[in-house]
Structure formats: C-alpha cells, structure tokens
C-alpha cells in the first residue's frame, strides 16, 4: 500500500445495485469518465449511467447482415442463372421467392457471426490478464456484489481525493487496484 506501487485504479464495492447506479451518476456529474462497473447480472441502468450503450456493434451487425443478404442472393443468382442454369418447372432462372429462405439464412448467419466477432474485437476479449482481478474481493462480482472501478488514467483521478469521494458513496469497501 505504498504510493510507489503503480495503480490501475480504485475499486469500490457496493452491496446494492441502486448505490452503484447513484455512485456512477455522482462521479459522471463530477466529470469522471474512465469508469467501469461490474455486476453479477446485466443492469440496464448501469450502462445508461456509464454512457456505454452506444457502440459500434449494432452498426457492424447491420453491415454484416446486409453483406450476408447480398452474398446469399448473389450466390444463388450466380449458381442458378449464370454458372449452371437449370429450368425448374418453367420458372424464371432468377426466381426470387425460391431464393428468399437462403438469402434470409445468410443474412442471419453473417449478422450473428459479425455480432460475436465484432463484440470480441471491440471489447478486447479474450483477455488473459486484467488488473481488476488483483483485488481479492472482486470474485464476488459474479455472485452478489456490485463493483465500480475508477481508472487511474482519468484526468481527475487522485489517489486520496478519489478515494474520499468513493468512500462518501456508501460502499462496502474501497480498494486500490495494483496494475
């Protein structure tokens, strides 16, 4: 606990999700931006207070779906109308109704793969090491406790000052997160 240990940030532990939400709100009002929260289950208010619900994933998924749609229809057009044209019951070679299911499936497949890969690419997972795990009580984040981490890279971060702010927000404990 000496000042020379490089610090990743400060971590506050809350027993109640409402305390976590109001703590985030308070810190955001004070101007803190490099915050992260950890909860045992998804809490919509937490994302909203953190301002993180807007990310690129949905846009990427839309593009992925669009690409899948074009790929699906293009694949069928090329195979059935250009590369190997077969007359099926006198129907046109490019028969849209018959092509809808495959096009739909390709749209879903590409969108789903983009969602998974895009999420991984943007959030940096898998991460073999993360400093927050240096706090022993952090294991409770997957059980019944709510954690808020203020990262040291925040311009407003001050080892003593930020700790005092966090302690005023009715946490169960405040711990330093060694880097």
């Amino acid at each position, binding site marked *: 606990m000496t000042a020379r240990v490089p610090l990743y940030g400060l971590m506050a532990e809350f027993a109640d999700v409402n305390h976590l939400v109001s703590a985030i709100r308070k810190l955001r009002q004070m101007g803190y931006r490099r915050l992260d929260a950890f909860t045992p289950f998804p809490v919509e208010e937490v994302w909203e207070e953190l301002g993180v619900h807007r990310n690129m994933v*949905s846009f990427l998924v839309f593009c992925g779906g669009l690409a899948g749609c074009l790929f699906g229809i293009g694949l069928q057009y090329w195979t059935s109308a250009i590369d190997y044209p077969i007359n099926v019951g006198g129907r046109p070679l490019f028969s849209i*109704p018959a092509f*809808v299911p495959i096009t739909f499936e390709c749209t879903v497949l590409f969108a789903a793969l983009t969602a998974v890969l895009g999420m991984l690419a943007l959030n940096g997972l898998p991460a073999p090491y993360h400093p927050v795990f240096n706090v022993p009580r952090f294991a409770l984040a997957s059980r019944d406790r709510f954690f808020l981490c203020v990262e040291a890279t925040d311009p407003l971060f001050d080892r003593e000052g930020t700790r005092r702010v966090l302690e005023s927000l009715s946490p169960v404990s405040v711990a330093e997160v060694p880097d």
Partner: protein
Amino acid sequence: MSSAMDDRSRFVLSADHPLFRVRPLALGAGAIGVAVSLAGALIDTTQFFQSYLFGFLFWFGIAMGSLALLMIYHVTGGAWGSVIRRSLESAVRTIPLLAVLFLPVVLGVHALYEWADTSRLAHDPLLQHKSTYLNVPFFIFRAALYFAVWTLLAIFLSRWSEAQENGEPRAIGWLENLSRGGLVAVVLTLTFAAIDWAMSLEPHWYSTLYGVLILGGCLLSAMAFMIQVTALLANNGPLSSVVQPMQFHDLGKLMFAFVMLWAYLSLSQLLIIWSGNLPEETPWYLKRMSGGWQYLGLLLILFHFALPFVILLSRDIKRNARLVASVALFILCVRVLEVYWLITPAFSPYQARVHWLDVTAWLGVGGVWLWAFTGGLRGRALVVWNDPSLPAAGGHA
C-alpha cells in the same frame, strides 16, 4: 388502506381526457357510418355485405389480438403487459358487442359465400363434397360457439381481474390457469373462424397456414393499437409517471416481432403455393396479382414489412413514445389495406376496386367499436396496483 385507495385514484382517467373527448365523435362517426351503410344496403345489398365483412374483420382483429395478448401476459407476466393490461381488458370486453356486430354477416351469408348459394352448389361437385362442413346451419352454429368461447373468456378475465384489484390473492392464479387453456382455445377457434369467415369466400382454395396468418395479423393490429393508446395515456394523463421508455422499448420490440411474424407467415404461404404451382392453389394469388391488386400487394411488401422492419430496428425510435406511436399508427393504416387485400379480391378478382360502402362500413363498425373500447377505460385505475414490475405504481422493485 385508504391512502392506497387514494393513490390508486390517481391512475383513473379524468373525464376530460382526450380519449374520452373523442367518444362522442366516435359514436357520431359510427352512427353516420352505420346509417349511410344501411342506406347503401337498400341500393346494393350484396356490396353492403361484402364491405361490411371487411370492416368487421379489421376491428374484430384488434379485439381478438388483444384477447390473445392479454392471456399471453397472464401466462408470462412482464412490465410490457402491466402498462397495457387495462387497455387490453377494455378491448376484450368489446367481444360481446362484436358478437352482435357479427349478425349482418350471418344475414348476408347467402350473398357472401359461394357455398351457401344453392344454384352454384348444384353444379359444383367439389362444393357438394365440402358441404358437410360448409353449410349454413353449421356455419351459424360454429360462429355461435366461437363467440361463446371468447365471451366466456372475456367475462372471466374481467371478473377475476377485478377480484385481483379488490385484493383477492388467489385471482392471479385463476387468471394464469384460465389463460393457459384459453390460449389453446383461442388459437383453435380463431383458426376455424378464419377458415369459415374469410378463407371460405373462395371455397375451392385452401391453405393450412391461413388461420395462423390471420392470428399473426390480429396480434400485430392489437399491438399497434395498444402502443397508440398507451402513448396517448402516457403523454397526457395518469400513466405518464409509470410508463418509462423501457416499456415502449418492449412494446416496440413486440410490434417488431409481429411485423416479422406476419412477413414470415405471408411468405411461407406464398412460397409453398408458388413452389407447388397447383391449379387449385395458385388462383388465390393470381386473383390478387392483376387488375391493380398487384400494386396493393407490392405496397404491403414495402409498407407492411420492409419499411416498419427497417425503422423498428432502431433502439432510439422504439424508446421514443411519440415516434413509436407514429410507426404504430402507420402499421394500423397498412393493416387496413392488408385485410382489404385478403378479403375484397374474393368478390372482385383480377380487378381492383374500392366502393364507398367499404369506407362507410369500416367507419361504422370502427366508430361503434372505439366508443365501446374507450368506455371500458372509464372509472378504473389504469395500472395494476402492487405490481412488482411497476415500482412507480405501488409495486416493490
């Protein structure tokens, strides 16, 4: 105890709410619509019955969709249903009225349905073969049976809901168990009602998917209507403190799902018939794909599916009461066109047409129905008290 009652009265709609101020207007429009349509019946009786069937089926769809949604809510729970529950109940309580409004269809059975026309029946072996099911007495018996089932469900759903409001702790369980069986009953009866009232307009044609297609349309109509009503109540009335963007988000997601369900079912039916390419199946589409009907069909692909689909992808639109209500209103308008496209080409195949009676009959049924629907919202607290999913209305989160 009394303070809880006082709190609850905050959620009763005041008599001067815009929703009540349109009541005389709705009744007036309904009365004029009915009167003009009846006058039209003297000029062209067959046209009157054809127009009336279309108008009836549109408004009937909203009530039936509401019945299904209400029972889905009783089985699943959720804040989305808690905020629209009173409106759903009010729509469900119009079912006895709809039974009365169905009477003109019974009176017009000979004018509407080919299989009830004895001169046609005599020369049509296929219709003779189907006449064990498609005959007038059995048709009326079945309709009476459907309305009996739906009315019983409506009565008990209302009665036990009131019991729950008055503090009967077992009422939630009663409603849940009733809804379990009720959902099965409604899916079955509505499937047969769709076959009887709409599919049998073209008695040579059949589609096993038809009942579900109609049910999907009913669910979409009901959800769009409920979003519209909830937006009115939240924007300008007692629900403003209860209904959060999250609830509109949920309702919008359900509407989005029903848009996709409708598209999925419509395409499935088309795809199967198109692939089979059988002479007894394709005419249903051929009648609807020429003489102007094809433009209405294209309009449906664009405005009943493509446009709402793209718009409702957006999270921000679904969370914005005003925007999601506009989309809902738009969908309701397109729903009218879809019902028209399903029904009217049976009377006017290969040749698109709109008769002024289509408008007046629709208006007549709609005015009366809306008057009854808004009447059902009088005097009741619009939220379920002590609902855990609604902390702003006495519930505990």
